[in-house]
Protein backbone atom coordinates (compact mmCIF):
# COMPACT_ATOMS: atom_id res chain seq x y z
CA UNK A 1 0.00 0.00 0.00
CA UNK A 2 1.15 3.55 -0.72
CA UNK A 3 2.58 5.69 1.97
CA UNK A 4 0.99 9.04 2.44
CA UNK A 5 3.24 10.39 5.15
CA UNK A 6 6.69 9.26 6.07
CA UNK A 7 9.06 10.78 8.57
CA UNK A 8 12.64 9.77 9.27
CA UNK A 9 14.30 11.09 12.42
CA UNK A 10 12.29 14.25 11.94
CA UNK A 11 12.99 17.07 14.40
CA UNK A 12 12.16 20.74 14.76
CA UNK A 13 13.85 23.15 17.10
CA UNK A 14 12.61 26.58 18.14
CA UNK A 15 15.50 28.42 19.65
CA UNK A 16 16.91 25.93 22.13
CA UNK A 17 13.75 23.91 22.58
CA UNK A 18 12.90 20.85 20.53
CA UNK A 19 9.21 21.06 19.60
CA UNK A 20 9.47 17.72 17.88
CA UNK A 21 12.31 15.27 18.08
CA UNK A 22 13.35 12.04 16.48
CA UNK A 23 10.00 11.41 14.89
CA UNK A 24 9.79 8.37 12.67
CA UNK A 25 6.45 7.58 11.10
CA UNK A 26 4.94 5.64 8.27
CA UNK A 27 1.31 6.30 7.50
CA UNK A 28 -0.34 4.27 4.75
CA UNK A 29 -2.69 5.91 2.27
CA UNK A 30 -6.46 5.86 2.63
CA UNK A 31 -6.44 6.21 6.40
CA UNK A 32 -7.97 8.70 8.73
CA UNK A 33 -5.15 9.36 11.12
CA UNK A 34 -5.73 10.71 14.57
CA UNK A 35 -2.81 12.61 16.04
CA UNK A 36 -3.42 12.94 19.75
CA UNK A 37 -1.45 14.37 22.60
CA UNK A 38 -1.69 17.09 25.18
CA UNK A 39 -1.46 20.74 24.21
CA UNK A 40 2.09 21.73 23.39
CA UNK A 41 3.19 18.19 22.63
CA UNK A 42 4.26 19.15 19.11
CA UNK A 43 1.15 18.20 17.13
CA UNK A 44 0.94 21.50 15.27
CA UNK A 45 4.65 21.42 14.59
CA UNK A 46 4.38 17.98 12.99
CA UNK A 47 1.41 19.03 10.86
CA UNK A 48 3.06 22.29 9.83
CA UNK A 49 6.09 20.31 8.75
CA UNK A 50 3.85 18.02 6.74
CA UNK A 51 2.20 20.87 4.82
CA UNK A 52 5.46 22.72 4.27
CA UNK A 53 4.74 25.67 6.54
CA UNK A 54 7.86 24.73 8.48
CA UNK A 55 11.14 23.22 7.40
CA UNK A 56 12.73 20.45 9.48
CA UNK A 57 15.73 21.12 11.69
CA UNK A 58 16.77 17.51 11.37
CA UNK A 59 15.65 14.41 9.53
CA UNK A 60 13.19 14.40 6.66
CA UNK A 61 9.48 14.27 5.99
CA UNK A 62 7.95 12.93 2.82
CA UNK A 63 4.36 13.58 1.85
CA UNK A 64 2.77 11.67 -1.02
CA UNK A 65 6.20 10.55 -2.11
CA UNK A 66 7.80 13.98 -2.26
CA UNK A 67 9.62 16.15 0.23
CA UNK A 68 7.04 18.20 2.12
CA UNK A 69 6.33 21.74 0.97
CA UNK A 70 7.35 21.26 -2.63
CA UNK A 71 5.25 20.75 -5.73
CA UNK A 72 2.71 18.55 -4.00
CA UNK A 73 1.10 21.67 -2.52
CA UNK A 74 -1.89 21.13 -4.82
CA UNK A 75 -2.38 17.62 -3.51
CA UNK A 76 -2.41 18.51 0.17
CA UNK A 77 -5.26 20.37 1.79
CA UNK A 78 -4.76 22.10 5.11
CA UNK A 79 -7.28 23.32 7.66
CA UNK A 80 -5.27 25.34 10.16
CA UNK A 81 -5.93 25.63 13.86
CA UNK A 82 -8.76 28.06 14.69
CA UNK A 83 -9.67 27.82 10.99
CA UNK A 84 -8.50 31.25 9.89
CA UNK A 85 -10.52 33.00 7.19
CA UNK A 86 -10.47 36.50 5.77
CA UNK A 87 -12.87 38.37 8.03
CA UNK A 88 -13.72 41.05 5.55
CA UNK A 89 -14.27 38.71 2.64
CA UNK A 90 -17.57 37.02 1.92
CA UNK A 91 -18.21 33.29 1.70
CA UNK A 92 -18.42 33.66 -2.09
CA UNK A 93 -15.06 35.45 -2.09
CA UNK A 94 -13.50 32.55 -0.27
CA UNK A 95 -14.81 30.09 -2.83
CA UNK A 96 -13.46 32.31 -5.55
CA UNK A 97 -10.11 32.40 -3.77
CA UNK A 98 -10.08 28.61 -3.72
CA UNK A 99 -11.02 28.44 -7.40
CA UNK A 100 -8.33 30.93 -8.39
CA UNK A 101 -5.52 29.45 -6.36
CA UNK A 102 -6.10 25.74 -7.00
CA UNK A 103 -5.92 24.17 -10.44
CA UNK A 104 -7.79 21.08 -9.22
CA UNK A 105 -10.69 23.05 -7.70
CA UNK A 106 -14.06 21.33 -7.88
CA UNK A 107 -16.71 24.00 -7.95
CA UNK A 108 -19.58 21.54 -7.65
CA UNK A 109 -18.29 20.13 -4.35
CA UNK A 110 -17.87 23.64 -3.02
CA UNK A 111 -21.28 24.98 -3.99
CA UNK A 112 -23.09 21.82 -2.91
CA UNK A 113 -21.48 21.93 0.48
CA UNK A 114 -22.16 25.62 1.04
CA UNK A 115 -25.74 25.12 -0.04
CA UNK A 116 -26.25 22.19 2.30
CA UNK A 117 -24.65 24.04 5.17
CA UNK A 118 -27.07 26.85 4.51
CA UNK A 119 -24.34 29.49 4.40
CA UNK A 120 -25.22 32.83 2.84
CA UNK A 121 -22.76 33.47 0.01
CA UNK A 122 -22.81 37.19 0.69
CA UNK A 123 -22.10 36.79 4.40
CA UNK A 124 -18.74 38.08 5.52
CA UNK A 125 -16.55 35.36 7.00
CA UNK A 126 -15.98 37.54 10.07
CA UNK A 127 -19.68 37.26 10.91
CA UNK A 128 -19.84 33.48 10.73
CA UNK A 129 -20.04 31.38 13.88
CA UNK A 130 -17.03 29.29 14.82
CA UNK A 131 -18.69 26.17 13.46
CA UNK A 132 -19.60 27.82 10.18
CA UNK A 133 -16.11 29.22 9.80
CA UNK A 134 -14.66 25.77 10.38
CA UNK A 135 -17.04 24.37 7.77
CA UNK A 136 -15.98 27.08 5.32
CA UNK A 137 -12.33 26.24 5.90
CA UNK A 138 -13.13 22.54 5.45
CA UNK A 139 -14.94 23.34 2.20
CA UNK A 140 -11.84 25.11 0.92
CA UNK A 141 -9.72 22.15 1.97
CA UNK A 142 -11.96 19.53 0.38
CA UNK A 143 -12.87 21.33 -2.82
CA UNK A 144 -9.30 21.55 -4.02
CA UNK A 145 -9.58 17.76 -4.26
CA UNK A 146 -6.47 16.91 -2.29
CA UNK A 147 -5.07 13.45 -1.86
CA UNK A 148 -4.23 14.26 1.72
CA UNK A 149 -6.17 16.55 3.99
CA UNK A 150 -4.42 17.79 7.10
CA UNK A 151 -6.48 19.31 9.91
CA UNK A 152 -4.93 20.97 12.94
CA UNK A 153 -7.28 20.79 15.94
CA UNK A 154 -10.24 21.55 13.67
CA UNK A 155 -12.92 21.03 16.30
CA UNK A 156 -11.14 22.20 19.43
CA UNK A 157 -12.96 25.51 19.51
CA UNK A 158 -16.39 24.14 18.57
CA UNK A 159 -19.36 23.28 20.73
CA UNK A 160 -20.38 19.59 20.84
CA UNK A 161 -23.04 19.93 18.16
CA UNK A 162 -20.83 21.81 15.73
CA UNK A 163 -18.06 19.35 16.53
CA UNK A 164 -20.24 16.41 15.59
CA UNK A 165 -21.46 18.09 12.42
CA UNK A 166 -17.94 18.93 11.37
CA UNK A 167 -16.75 15.35 11.83
CA UNK A 168 -19.81 14.02 10.02
CA UNK A 169 -19.02 16.21 7.03
CA UNK A 170 -15.39 15.29 7.13
CA UNK A 171 -16.20 11.57 7.18
CA UNK A 172 -18.66 12.00 4.37
CA UNK A 173 -15.94 13.63 2.28
CA UNK A 174 -13.64 10.75 3.10
CA UNK A 175 -16.32 8.32 1.94
CA UNK A 176 -16.94 10.26 -1.28
CA UNK A 177 -13.42 11.15 -2.34
CA UNK A 178 -10.43 8.94 -2.07
CA UNK A 179 -8.87 10.96 0.63
CA UNK A 180 -6.30 10.36 3.34
CA UNK A 181 -6.77 12.46 6.42
CA UNK A 182 -4.49 13.46 9.28
CA UNK A 183 -6.36 15.12 12.08
CA UNK A 184 -4.94 16.35 15.36
CA UNK A 185 -6.82 16.64 18.59
CA UNK A 186 -6.22 16.76 22.28
CA UNK A 187 -9.44 14.80 22.75
CA UNK A 188 -9.40 11.06 22.30
CA UNK A 189 -13.15 11.04 21.82
CA UNK A 190 -12.86 13.12 18.62
CA UNK A 191 -10.52 10.56 17.23
CA UNK A 192 -12.17 7.40 18.50
CA UNK A 193 -14.98 7.21 16.00
CA UNK A 194 -13.54 8.87 12.99
CA UNK A 195 -10.00 7.60 12.85
CA UNK A 196 -8.56 4.23 12.03
CA UNK A 197 -4.93 5.07 12.62
CA UNK A 198 -3.50 6.61 15.74
CA UNK A 199 -0.37 8.56 16.54
CA UNK A 200 0.24 9.48 20.16
CA UNK A 201 2.59 12.41 20.59
CA UNK A 202 3.76 13.44 24.04
CA UNK A 203 6.60 15.75 25.03
CA UNK A 204 7.69 16.21 21.40
CA UNK A 205 8.07 12.48 20.84
CA UNK A 206 5.93 9.88 19.10
CA UNK A 207 4.96 7.35 21.77
CA UNK A 208 3.07 4.92 19.61
CA UNK A 209 1.54 4.79 16.16
CA UNK A 210 -0.44 2.21 14.28
CA UNK A 211 -3.86 0.97 13.19
CA UNK A 212 -6.30 1.56 16.01
CA UNK A 213 -7.72 -1.91 15.64
CA UNK A 214 -4.29 -3.49 15.91
CA UNK A 215 -3.44 -1.32 18.87
CA UNK A 216 -6.64 -2.30 20.67
CA UNK A 217 -6.06 -5.96 19.88
CA UNK A 218 -2.53 -6.02 21.20
CA UNK A 219 -2.87 -4.01 24.39
CA UNK A 220 -4.20 -5.47 27.63
CA UNK A 221 -4.59 -4.47 31.20
CA UNK A 222 -3.51 -7.35 33.43
CA UNK A 223 -3.78 -7.47 37.16
CA UNK A 224 -2.84 -10.07 39.71
CA UNK A 225 -0.68 -10.73 42.74
CA UNK A 226 2.25 -8.40 43.04
CA UNK A 227 5.24 -9.33 40.97
CA UNK A 228 8.19 -7.79 39.23
CA UNK A 229 7.66 -6.47 35.69
CA UNK A 230 10.93 -8.08 34.68
CA UNK A 231 9.50 -11.54 35.20
CA UNK A 232 7.13 -11.15 32.27
CA UNK A 233 7.78 -13.06 29.04
CA UNK A 234 9.95 -11.10 26.58
CA UNK A 235 7.07 -10.78 24.11
CA UNK A 236 5.11 -8.67 26.61
CA UNK A 237 6.11 -5.02 26.69
CA UNK A 238 5.07 -3.06 29.73
CA UNK A 239 3.55 0.30 28.90
CA UNK A 240 2.54 1.31 32.37
CA UNK A 241 2.62 -0.33 35.75
CA UNK A 242 1.24 0.38 39.17
CA UNK A 243 1.78 -1.66 42.26
CA UNK A 244 0.26 -1.89 45.70
CA UNK A 245 1.96 -4.08 48.29
CA UNK A 246 -0.14 -7.05 47.22
CA UNK A 247 -1.24 -6.33 43.67
CA UNK A 248 0.27 -5.36 40.35
CA UNK A 249 -1.69 -3.78 37.53
CA UNK A 250 0.06 -3.49 34.20
CA UNK A 251 -0.76 -2.28 30.75
CA UNK A 252 1.13 -4.39 28.30
CA UNK A 253 1.53 -4.72 24.59
CA UNK A 254 1.87 -8.19 23.14
CA UNK A 255 1.05 -10.00 19.95
CA UNK A 256 0.73 -13.30 21.74
CA UNK A 257 -2.02 -14.61 24.02
CA UNK A 258 -1.47 -14.17 27.73
CA UNK A 259 -1.22 -17.65 29.15
CA UNK A 260 -0.29 -17.03 32.77
CA UNK A 261 -3.47 -17.89 34.75
CA UNK A 262 -2.45 -15.65 37.63
CA UNK A 263 -3.41 -12.59 35.62
CA UNK A 264 -6.88 -11.22 35.24
CA UNK A 265 -6.81 -9.94 31.69
CA UNK A 266 -9.00 -7.16 30.34
CA UNK A 267 -9.19 -5.11 27.19
CA UNK A 268 -8.40 -1.41 27.08
CA UNK A 269 -10.52 1.35 25.69
CA UNK A 270 -8.73 3.66 23.27
CA UNK A 271 -8.68 6.34 25.88
CA UNK A 272 -7.08 4.08 28.50
CA UNK A 273 -4.55 3.04 25.93
CA UNK A 274 -3.63 6.65 25.14
CA UNK A 275 -3.49 7.52 28.82
CA UNK A 276 -1.17 4.60 29.48
CA UNK A 277 1.28 5.96 26.93
CA UNK A 278 0.97 9.46 28.29
CA UNK A 279 1.68 8.35 31.80
CA UNK A 280 4.74 6.51 30.62
CA UNK A 281 6.58 9.55 29.31
CA UNK A 282 6.62 11.46 32.53
CA UNK A 283 7.19 8.36 34.67
CA UNK A 284 10.96 8.66 34.98
CA UNK A 285 10.73 12.07 36.64
CA UNK A 286 7.46 12.35 38.50
CA UNK A 287 4.83 9.74 38.57
CA UNK A 288 2.05 11.93 39.89
CA UNK A 289 2.52 14.66 37.30
CA UNK A 290 0.76 13.46 34.18
CA UNK A 291 0.21 15.45 31.03
CA UNK A 292 -3.33 16.67 30.96
CA UNK A 293 -5.53 14.90 28.51
CA UNK A 294 -9.02 16.22 28.46
CA UNK A 295 -11.73 13.69 28.45
CA UNK A 296 -15.00 14.67 26.96
CA UNK A 297 -17.89 12.52 26.01
Amino acid at each position, binding site marked *: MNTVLQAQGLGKKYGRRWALSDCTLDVPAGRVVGLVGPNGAGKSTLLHLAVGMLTPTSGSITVLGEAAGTSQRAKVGFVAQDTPTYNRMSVADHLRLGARLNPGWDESIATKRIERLGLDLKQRAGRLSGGQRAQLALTLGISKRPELLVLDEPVAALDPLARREFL*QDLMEAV*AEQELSVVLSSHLV*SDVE*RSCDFLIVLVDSRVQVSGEIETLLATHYRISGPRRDEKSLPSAQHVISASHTDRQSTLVIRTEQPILDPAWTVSRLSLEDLVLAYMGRTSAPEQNNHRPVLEVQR
Partner: protein
Amino acid sequence: MIEFHLDERSGVSPYQQIVQQVRNALRLGMLRIGDRLPTVKEVVAQLAINPNTVLKAYRELEHEGLVSAKQGVGTFVTQTLADTSLAAHGPLRQDLQRWLTKARRAGLDDESIEALFLATFRTAAQEDIA
Protein backbone atom coordinates in the same frame (compact mmCIF):
# COMPACT_ATOMS: atom_id res chain seq x y z
CA MET B 1 -34.19 0.93 6.49
CA ILE B 2 -32.59 0.94 9.89
CA GLU B 3 -30.58 3.58 11.65
CA PHE B 4 -27.43 2.78 13.56
CA HIS B 5 -26.35 4.28 16.85
CA LEU B 6 -23.13 3.95 18.75
CA ASP B 7 -22.60 3.46 22.44
CA GLU B 8 -19.10 4.68 23.17
CA ARG B 9 -19.10 3.33 26.71
CA SER B 10 -19.95 -0.23 25.79
CA GLY B 11 -16.32 -1.10 25.12
CA VAL B 12 -17.45 -2.84 21.94
CA SER B 13 -15.73 -1.49 18.84
CA PRO B 14 -17.89 0.59 16.48
CA TYR B 15 -17.66 -1.96 13.70
CA GLN B 16 -18.84 -4.74 16.00
CA GLN B 17 -21.69 -2.57 17.18
CA ILE B 18 -22.88 -2.13 13.60
CA VAL B 19 -22.64 -5.85 12.95
CA GLN B 20 -24.56 -6.58 16.15
CA GLN B 21 -27.24 -4.04 15.34
CA VAL B 22 -27.82 -5.57 11.92
CA ARG B 23 -27.96 -9.03 13.45
CA ASN B 24 -30.39 -7.87 16.12
CA ALA B 25 -32.58 -6.20 13.53
CA LEU B 26 -32.59 -9.43 11.54
CA ARG B 27 -33.36 -11.44 14.63
CA LEU B 28 -36.24 -9.22 15.66
CA GLY B 29 -37.61 -9.01 12.15
CA MET B 30 -36.91 -5.29 11.68
CA LEU B 31 -34.90 -6.15 8.58
CA ARG B 32 -36.24 -8.58 6.05
CA ILE B 33 -34.79 -10.19 2.97
CA GLY B 34 -34.46 -7.68 0.14
CA ASP B 35 -34.18 -4.65 2.44
CA ARG B 36 -31.41 -2.25 1.66
CA LEU B 37 -28.90 -1.28 4.36
CA PRO B 38 -27.96 2.40 4.62
CA THR B 39 -25.10 3.33 2.30
CA VAL B 40 -21.66 3.84 3.75
CA LYS B 41 -21.97 7.56 3.08
CA GLU B 42 -25.28 7.73 4.92
CA VAL B 43 -23.94 5.91 7.96
CA VAL B 44 -20.80 8.01 8.00
CA ALA B 45 -22.71 11.27 7.68
CA GLN B 46 -24.99 10.25 10.51
CA LEU B 47 -22.51 8.83 13.00
CA ALA B 48 -19.35 10.75 12.08
CA ILE B 49 -17.43 7.51 11.97
CA ASN B 50 -14.72 6.32 9.69
CA PRO B 51 -16.05 4.92 6.39
CA ASN B 52 -13.66 1.97 6.68
CA THR B 53 -15.45 0.98 9.87
CA VAL B 54 -18.76 0.69 8.05
CA LEU B 55 -17.18 -1.08 5.10
CA LYS B 56 -15.60 -3.56 7.44
CA ALA B 57 -18.87 -4.24 9.22
CA TYR B 58 -20.68 -4.75 5.92
CA ARG B 59 -17.90 -7.04 4.68
CA GLU B 60 -18.25 -9.15 7.78
CA LEU B 61 -22.02 -9.36 7.34
CA GLU B 62 -21.44 -10.31 3.72
CA HIS B 63 -18.94 -12.92 4.76
CA GLU B 64 -21.53 -14.40 7.11
CA GLY B 65 -23.91 -14.56 4.19
CA LEU B 66 -26.44 -12.21 5.75
CA VAL B 67 -26.20 -9.44 3.17
CA SER B 68 -24.84 -8.99 -0.33
CA ALA B 69 -23.47 -5.87 -1.97
CA LYS B 70 -24.59 -4.95 -5.47
CA GLN B 71 -22.09 -2.65 -7.17
CA GLY B 72 -23.41 0.89 -7.35
CA VAL B 73 -26.83 0.00 -5.96
CA GLY B 74 -26.37 -0.85 -2.31
CA THR B 75 -26.13 -3.60 0.22
CA PHE B 76 -29.18 -5.85 0.54
CA VAL B 77 -30.33 -8.34 3.13
CA THR B 78 -30.21 -11.86 1.76
CA GLN B 79 -30.94 -13.93 4.85
CA THR B 80 -32.79 -13.51 8.06
CA LEU B 81 -31.98 -14.74 11.54
CA ALA B 82 -35.46 -14.43 12.94
CA ASP B 83 -36.82 -18.01 12.66
CA THR B 84 -33.85 -20.11 13.77
CA SER B 85 -32.70 -18.18 16.78
CA LEU B 86 -36.10 -17.10 18.08
CA ALA B 87 -37.04 -20.74 18.43
CA ALA B 88 -33.95 -21.46 20.47
CA HIS B 89 -34.55 -18.53 22.84
CA GLY B 90 -37.11 -20.35 25.03
CA PRO B 91 -35.12 -23.41 26.12
CA LEU B 92 -31.95 -21.36 26.60
CA ARG B 93 -33.77 -18.96 28.86
CA GLN B 94 -35.06 -21.86 30.93
CA ASP B 95 -31.53 -23.24 31.31
CA LEU B 96 -30.31 -19.85 32.45
CA GLN B 97 -33.07 -19.52 34.97
CA ARG B 98 -32.21 -22.87 36.44
CA TRP B 99 -28.58 -21.90 36.65
CA LEU B 100 -29.48 -18.60 38.36
CA THR B 101 -31.51 -20.40 41.01
CA LYS B 102 -28.55 -22.67 41.61
CA ALA B 103 -26.23 -19.73 42.02
CA ARG B 104 -28.54 -18.02 44.54
CA ARG B 105 -28.78 -21.20 46.55
CA ALA B 106 -24.98 -21.31 46.63
CA GLY B 107 -25.14 -17.89 48.31
CA LEU B 108 -24.11 -15.58 45.41
CA ASP B 109 -25.64 -12.10 45.36
CA ASP B 110 -26.59 -10.26 42.14
CA GLU B 111 -23.21 -8.61 41.74
CA SER B 112 -21.27 -11.83 42.16
CA ILE B 113 -23.55 -13.56 39.67
CA GLU B 114 -22.97 -10.83 37.12
CA ALA B 115 -19.19 -10.84 37.68
CA LEU B 116 -19.02 -14.59 37.37
CA PHE B 117 -21.13 -14.59 34.24
CA LEU B 118 -19.11 -11.84 32.54
CA ALA B 119 -15.76 -13.39 33.49
CA THR B 120 -16.82 -16.78 32.14
CA PHE B 121 -18.31 -15.20 29.05
CA ARG B 122 -15.14 -13.27 28.29
CA THR B 123 -12.83 -16.19 28.92
CA ALA B 124 -14.96 -18.35 26.64
CA ALA B 125 -14.94 -15.64 23.99
CA GLN B 126 -11.18 -15.35 24.21
CA GLU B 127 -10.66 -19.04 23.94
CA ASP B 128 -12.74 -18.93 20.79
CA ILE B 129 -10.51 -16.23 19.34
CA ALA B 130 -7.34 -17.95 20.41
